């Protein structure tokens, strides 16, 4: 079985993509709403990724 070594960012990015797709499909009713909500979730994931990353960096000094 292949073994992959992803960085933090790559792993979190993949996680965001897959989770956003499923959340968009399962929670909204029309295609447009699904696209919008999926993009919104993905944006929130990426924003949280950078925001928490910077907070941890600044918190460590």
């Amino acid at each position, binding site marked *: *079985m292949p073994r992959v070594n992803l960085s*933090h960012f790559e792993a979190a990015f993949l996680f965001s993509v*897959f989770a956003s797709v499923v959340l968009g499909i*399962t929670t909204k009713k029309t295609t447009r709403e699904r696209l919008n909500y999926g993009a919104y979730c993905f944006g929130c994931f990426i924003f949280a990724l950078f925001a928490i990353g910077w907070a941890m960096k600044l918190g460590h000094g």
Partner: protein
Amino acid sequence: MASISRTQQTTQSGATTVGRSVEPSQPADVQNAVAPAIREHDANDSHVTLVKVLRMAETQVAAAPKQAVPPINTWILPVAAAWFIPGLGHFLLKKTGRGALLFASIALMFLFGLFMRGMMFTPEKGADYLTSLINYGGFVCDIASGAFYLCAAIFGYSQPDMPGDVHDYGTKFLVTAGLLNILAMVDVFEIAAKRRD
């Protein structure tokens, strides 16, 4: 007859109340004579208001649609299929596009979890309550991936819990794949029960 006016009064606590009062310009005996009638009128008024509110509430409760649980044979097969192979329930309900996307997302997440050597939880009692909760909860989430979990278990995938960010991400990917499949199963149930298109 003394005129009655609706006034706004501010109480000591600062709350504003609306009530009826006799105009202060009236003589004291007139005020005393009219006060019981005002109190009775206010009591009747509030009683009428209360009855109206109760009737409105009854009407709204009666008008609210009750969602009956649909017969089990309408949704058990698609939901079971959705558990066994993510997206298959949507395929059975002729939602092929959504089914394909769900299958791809959940399968890729599970596969990346395996490729990162994530740990599969086992239902065992831990040293404390929280560890037991994590073990049992993680096991349920792993099982929710359906055939992916069964295949991994059958082919002997076993990874010890090792320190390291990649392994940790792998464990989270495996657990999240199951959680996302639970969302997909709920979606299948709602479609099969005609609660969604």
